């Protein structure tokens, strides 16, 4: 059940409406039932997996909490991690692993190993596994107490707004809110209105922006041997926009849907393309995942506490793992590695950059300097996205090769860019939508509030006009229905 689908349009108001009306004791059970129904709507068989993850981490949490010695705690934690990551490995990485083993074996002329399993990747497995594992580590560290109420814990793992594509919640935030159900009032008019606004904005990003630009991006990536420099740059820039609008759109709907029911999920995006460095970018992009890796991988590896060389190694390893988290493919590993390298090189060149800046008399406080930093960061991020989007490492390198082939700037003006799936009218709609996205991003950047909260703070007439315009834009200009196959949200595959 996609957020941008008719079943969700029916499902959500019923679930949220009943949740707000039901007696306190029933609320968590109702949400749990709804969450499992939501998950099973993709493939009912995979409910076994989420149940397994829930049971294992629930038991691990209790056992870690009860364990008398540090060694026992460690053992229970290790068992929990091995079982959960084992499951994730089996479903997500086993095929990739066998493929690479086969490649190595073929070098030594030893036969290929066929994958005996042919599973579809269970939707959201990376997300809920990380969330549940994070809970075990939190209990192990003593940051929270083990949850004894199974219903509430199961709801924490399966809470439907963020179940399949995040934000990857921390137990300290979401589990504590679930425990407050029935104890104090969490839902409010303010949260409902701002949540509704967030949901509309998310749908607009996904259906009007992401799915529209994806038509052009898909066409360009499908025909890379026909494209030249200008098309290749447009394709890469288009994908930068697509993935942001797609994933930020999903997150906005998730956060908004939770907010309507009175839950506050963590922020997942904070104007990432306004970042002035790669490190800054990762403070703003997929925040729930980057902070997860920071808290549960980078810092346990030693972070920056063990010297520069170790720090660089930790950064590099963290980003390689992050790349692998996104998908079982070398192109994702390279994408992660590139982001690690960017940061290491950036740090290494810092003294030289500062000296050059001084020499040239550059003033860091000027808007021009900042814009330059932002553009350079976006350029690096956009370049790395090519590996993320390409279907293989070879295709990514071929694509980069096309960026240096047939340099014809005139194609920007001769309307040939309109031959890639978006005609003049569609391009105009896209440009208007991008303009709106820039305005909303500036509001977020300057005021520090999300669009839902910003709209709630405006007067009612303005808010209603914006809501109605968003609804009509989504209905009319959204990409959906017959003759359109957007597939799903990009991050569902992770």
């Amino acid at each position, binding site marked *: 059940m996609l957020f941008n689908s008719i079943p969700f349009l029916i499902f959500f108001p019923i679930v949220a409406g009943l949740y707000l009306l039901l007696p306190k004791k029933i609320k968590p059970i109702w949400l749990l039932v709804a969450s499992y129904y939501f998950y099973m709507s993709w493939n009912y068989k995979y409910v076994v997996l989420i149940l397994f993850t829930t049971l294992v981490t629930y038991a691990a949490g209790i056992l870690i909490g009860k364990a008398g010695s540090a060694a026992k705690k460690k053992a229970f934690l290790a068992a929990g991690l091995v079982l959960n990551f084992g499951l994730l490995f089996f479903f997500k990485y086993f095929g990739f692993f066998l493929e690479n083993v086969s490649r190595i074996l073929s070098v030594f002329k030893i036969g290929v190993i066929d994958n005996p399993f042919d599973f579809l990747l269970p939707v959201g497995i990376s997300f809920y596994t990380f969330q549940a594992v994070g809970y075990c580590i939190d209990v192990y560290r003593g940051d929270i107490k083990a949850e004894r109420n199974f219903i509430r814990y199961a709801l924490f793992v399966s809470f439907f707004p963020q179940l399949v594509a995040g934000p990857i919640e921390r137990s300290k935030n979401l589990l504590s809110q679930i425990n407050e159900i029935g104890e104090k009032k969490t839902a409010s008019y303010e949260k409902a209105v701002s949540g509704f606004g967030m949901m509309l904005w998310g749908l607009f990003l996904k259906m009007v922006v992401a799915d529209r630009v994806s038509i052009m991006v898909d066409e360009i990536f499908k025909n890379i041997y026909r494209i030249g420099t200008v098309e290749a740059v447009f394709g890469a820039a288009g994908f930068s926009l697509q993935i942001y609008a797609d994933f930020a759109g999903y997150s906005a709907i998730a956060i908004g849907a939770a907010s309507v029911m009175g839950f506050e999920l963590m922020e997942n995006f904070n104007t990432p393309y306004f970042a002035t460095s790669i490190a800054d970018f990762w403070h703003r992009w997929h925040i729930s995942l980057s902070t997860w890796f920071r808290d549960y991988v980078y810092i346990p590896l030693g972070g920056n506490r063990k010297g520069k060389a170790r720090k660089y190694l930790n950064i590099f390893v963290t980003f390689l793992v992050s790349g692998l988290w996104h998908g079982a493919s070398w192109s994702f590993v390279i994408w992660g590695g590139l982001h690690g390298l960017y940061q290491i090189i950036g740090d290494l060149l810092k003294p030289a950059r500062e000296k050059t800046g001084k020499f040239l008399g550059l003033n860091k406080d000027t808007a021009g300097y900042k814009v330059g930093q932002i553009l350079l960061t976006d350029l690096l991020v956009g370049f790395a996205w090519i590996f993320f989007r390409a279907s293989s490492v070879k295709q990514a390198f071929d694509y980069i090769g096309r960026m240096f082939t047939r340099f014809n700037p005139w194609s920007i003006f001769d309307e040939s860019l309109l031959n890639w799936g978006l005609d003049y009218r569609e391009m105009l709609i896209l440009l208007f939508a991008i303009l709106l996205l820039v305005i909303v991003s500036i509001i977020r950047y300057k005021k520090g509030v999300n669009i839902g909260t910003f709209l709630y703070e405006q007067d009612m007439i303005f808010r*209603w006009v914006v*809501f109605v315009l968003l*609804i009509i834009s989504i*209905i009319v200009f959204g990409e959906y*229905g017959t003759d359109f196959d957007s597939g799903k949200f990009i991050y569902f595959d992770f």
Partner: protein
Amino acid sequence: MKSTDIPVKTRIKRICAVACFAALVFLCIFGTYKVLKWKDTMGEYLSSVDMLKATDKELIDVVFMGSSHAYNGFNPAYFWEDKGWSCFDMAISGQDATSTYYYLKYLLRRQSPKVVCVDLYGFTFDKHGVQGNEYRNYLSMPAVDLQVKMVREYVDEEDRQDYIVRFPIVHTRYKELGKYDFYNYKLNDYIRGEKISWTVGEACAPESSDGSLSPAELSESKVKWLDDMYELSQKEGFSLVLVALPYNIPAESQEKIDTVSKYCEEKGIAFYDFNRLRHEIGFDYTHDFVDSGHLNTYGAKKVEMFLKEEFECYNLPDHRGDERYYQWDEDLEYFGREEYKNSMRVTDDLCALCSMICAGEDYVSVISLEGDYLDRNNVYYEPLWILGMSYEEYEKGGKWIFEDGTLTKVFENEINADPYIKELGDMNTLKIQYEGDYLFRENIMINDESVYSYGSFMTIAIYDKKLGELVSVKGF
């Protein structure tokens, strides 16, 4: 603050705000749907559903159901003119059997026809070959309950949701919106579902319809459809008539029609296969068809001549003179104008054209004389004299408007002179100007379209005020 701490006034205000917002959203979505909805059931913004809605209840005596074969082949204006029977074409392009059944049920909610005459073209195929026809049939049904049922019966499961909600399909129409998505197409109110076409095209007589009947076994769904139609006729008390209008029918379809023939014989249902009756009726395959699939208005006349005799047995009343049936009168008037329009279009005789302009009502005609027209031995003068032009005026040249029996000069052929502008109803604007002699297309325009005969010394453009459309542009 606990929920109970919220003042009652604030609560009521919020509830009212939510309700008002919901109403506002509903209205906006409804308004958007009205613009985007599928309006075209015959390819020209003519919708039999809209026409049916505009017809008062319990007026229709004979309903013709079917596809484009039906709206081309059954002309209610002929029946009204000859017999005073209130006939109506509930026809939609590509109307399939399922669609026929449910549109008939929809019609029966507002009307109690005595005769329901169904063309069987839709019976001969299972699925539409043209996507647009599927949309026409399954997105035009106004009754939600019937639409859900017909969609469940016909549309594949994975697409049903899109058809029922409609927006997933119709929202893409933002790419093709035209002026009639925002304005009502005036003719919807009074024509009775027929399509009037004077085009004469090539058609072949169907060889598969010769010889004895060769019935084939029908699928379960086809038999069920026949049973359902028969039961409906028994339940609602109308006489069911099944016909196969003439076209170049393939052998496989003819076999199905032959099977229906036997079914009708068993059940006592009136049945006419016009392909087999073609010799008796005298269809002329070089004159009576638009193309190999459809009759033109001449062919429709032959169908009417045959059916009006056959329908005598139903004792249908003559409603001519009854004010409640004004739409049939207007339909006949409309048909008359179309006939007149066709005469003006086909004639190449300038004198005859000017006589028709003179005799016609509610036309605006623009007459333009430019260039070396005087070198043509006054060939234009005699016809223009019929419209009331003096020789002095003729010699000067320029542009005239003939309206309501009066000829008025509105423009001298002067370059850079301000254009003459005339509003033609709510939708169209006439602009007359002079950019140079007879080789400048923009000397006569309606809206942004040239209605000027390029390269001619004389142009006559005729606009029908009543139909709101350009009738003809002739160059001499």
